[in-house]
């Protein structure tokens, strides 16, 4: 990579971290205004982990993100408009208003939709990776979960199955100190969750989850391992949930000194300082990025607010998919509209989590 390319890449990372934060700040505002109903989960402080991990991926790779992984969605090209339509439960949201939050996905772009039952996405990640292995691809799956989800049976079954089958999957644990109000000391009796790798025979590493370059390096190593056909790997990103579990949670169970300590390690500020010290981020470029971020967020919110609500008459619809041929995702021609999984057959339109439809606004 040339100097210029590297500078570009670093600014792109910075952009995504800022965009993630800004999207969540706006989401919070919408929630406080009563415009989003139901639970709102944000991830201030996770940006180095989510953006850094996703930056290690290539075309054809797949993410299996969880509820705090907006950064991954954005890096992988999920549209801010789609995200805001989803939060505002619009009829043109990826789930057509059926589901909320970041429960969205689109296999042609390598995003598996999560469910609320945490941990349960990890076996699904194995299935995606199994197909990549069967089809002799050099793609991989990046699947995440929280510290809390590591206590589920699904976590164990998935990691073990991936190890036995040598599946190309990287498991990233976002250890943010708490599962809701439950501190890690009440969740497991080990120091680092990367030690779990020892139980499965896969490499495991822990990394400072607030240092985006460190995350990229360590997750990147795990991704290389998986891509090379050597099987799965585990990475623990150690970060902190500096806000409440949801936006309705004041989180007064978190010792304020601890929260302060982690606020001081804010990943975006740290990266800003680094970029500034390296001479890559100037006051001007920062302003430019900020205005781009704001434009994207404004556009997304405006688009979502102008979008229709779901039609109540459809409440009993879409329970079963129609008949017809199914394409193997990622093979040539897989998006030919004759396939039942090429377009969203609920609407007859392309799956709408992805940004190419609005390239001009949202891409760097």
């Amino acid at each position, binding site marked *: 990579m040339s100097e210029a390319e590297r500078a570009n890449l670093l600014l792109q990372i910075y952009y995504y971290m800022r965009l993630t934060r800004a999207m969540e700040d706006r989401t919070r505002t919408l929630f406080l205004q009563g415009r989003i109903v139901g639970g709102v989960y944000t991830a201030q402080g996770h940006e180095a982990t989510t953006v850094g991990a996703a930056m290690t991926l290539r075309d054809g790779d797949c993410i299996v993100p969880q509820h705090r992984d907006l950064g991954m969605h954005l890096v992988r090209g999920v549209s801010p408009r789609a995200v805001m339509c989803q939060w505002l439960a619009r009829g043109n949201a990826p789930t057509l208003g059926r589901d*909320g939050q970041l429960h969205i996905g689109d296999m042609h772009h390598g995003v598996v939709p999560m469910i*609320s039952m945490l941990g349960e996405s990890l076996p699904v990640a194995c299935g995606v990776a199994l197909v990549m292995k069967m089809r002799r691809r050099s793609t991989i799956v990046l699947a995440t979960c929280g510290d809390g989800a590591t206590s589920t049976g699904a976590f164990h079954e998935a990691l073990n199955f991936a190890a036995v089958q040598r599946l190309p999957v990287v498991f990233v644990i976002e250890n943010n100190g708490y599962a809701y109000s439950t501190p890690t000391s009440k969740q497991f009796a080990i120091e680092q969750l990367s030690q779990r790798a020892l139980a499965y025979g896969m490499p495991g590493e822990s990394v400072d989850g607030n240092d985006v370059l460190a995350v990229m390096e360590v997750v990147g190593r795990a991704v290389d391992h998986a891509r090379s056909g050597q099987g799965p790997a585990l990475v623990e990103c150690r970060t902190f949930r500096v806000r409440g579990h949801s936006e309705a949670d004041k989180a007064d169970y978190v010792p304020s000194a601890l929260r302060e300590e982690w606020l001081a390690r804010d990943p975006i500020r740290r990266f800003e300082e680094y970029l500034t010290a390296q001479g890559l981020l100037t006051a001007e470029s920062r302003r430019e990025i900020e205005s781009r971020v704001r434009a994207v967020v404004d556009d997304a919110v405006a688009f979502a607010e102008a979008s229709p609500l779901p039609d109540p008459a459809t409440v009993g619809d879409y329970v079963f998919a129609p008949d017809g041929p199914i394409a193997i995702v990622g093979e040539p021609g897989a998006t030919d509209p004759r396939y039942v999984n090429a377009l969203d057959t609920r609407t007859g339109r392309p799956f709408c989590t992805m940004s190419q439809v609005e390239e001009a606004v949202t891409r760097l």
Partner: protein
Amino acid sequence: MTAVTYLEAISQAIREEMRRDESVFLLGEDVGTYGGAFKVSAGFLEEFGPERVIDTPMSETAIIGSAVGAALMGMRPIAEMQYIDFITCGFDQIVNMACKMYWRSGIPLPLVIRGPTGGGTHGGPFHSASPEAWFFHTPGIKVVMPATTYDAKGLLKAAIRDNNPVLYLEHKLLYRLPELREELPAEDYIVPLGKAIIRRYGRHMTILTYGAMVHQCLRAAEQLAAEDGLAVEVVDLRSLTPLDRETIKESVKRTNKVLIVHEDTLTGGVGAELAALLAEELFDYLDGPIMRVAAPDAPYPYAPSLEMAYLPGVERIVAVARQLAAY
């Protein structure tokens, strides 16, 4: 004495039982320090300490399995599911371990599994479950669903004192509903499992319902009385297992027409059994088809506009009741 909410009644029931009986304890996610996601156990940790108010890891199978183990030892554990939706992650422990234990081994299993159920709170497809039909169909577990503050306390106390696995389904929409505030008796009381209650008498038709739908049905009954002069009887089942077949049948023998209402999806729901029971045993008494109002056969939707259309409401109940009355 002050009127308390449905949620406070639940909280009181657990607290009083824990004070009364050292074998009662609570375990689940965030039930201790946090006092539970809905604050049912707020203050419990301080009063009872961490051995009787146990914050667990996110492990539904371990929560329910540990409760089974403790019950085998003669304790009376209360296992909280943070939302009842997550019970699917401990399903095997319930249906294979707990439900068959006494029948196989003679060892009683005094165990309560409880959690917030139902919709109307914009919870979406994973935080709005009405899981009763799965367990209603499974022999070996009692299933109760209180609709009022009085019952919330009395049924929970009865559930805790019962010597069998009991699934206690609290409806989260009712937790803090001001209309449900009630002054509760100062003295200890229970509402026995397996007893329905007639919430409103009437001779023109019987509505069989339970849970939050009781209130929709009562409102519908009032409207039908005011606008149509119909006297509609509303039976709140309270317990699904054991099912109070007597009260149900006596009511239908008097009214000869039946409307069944539940929030859960229609096909294979609890209402199907109620209809089947009556179509078999009270055929001669029926003066019209047995009608059902329930959610459509689809997952629970998130968007408020869809949620409104999904949940059975007064309007639909009234419309179907009119059809039935006109039959």
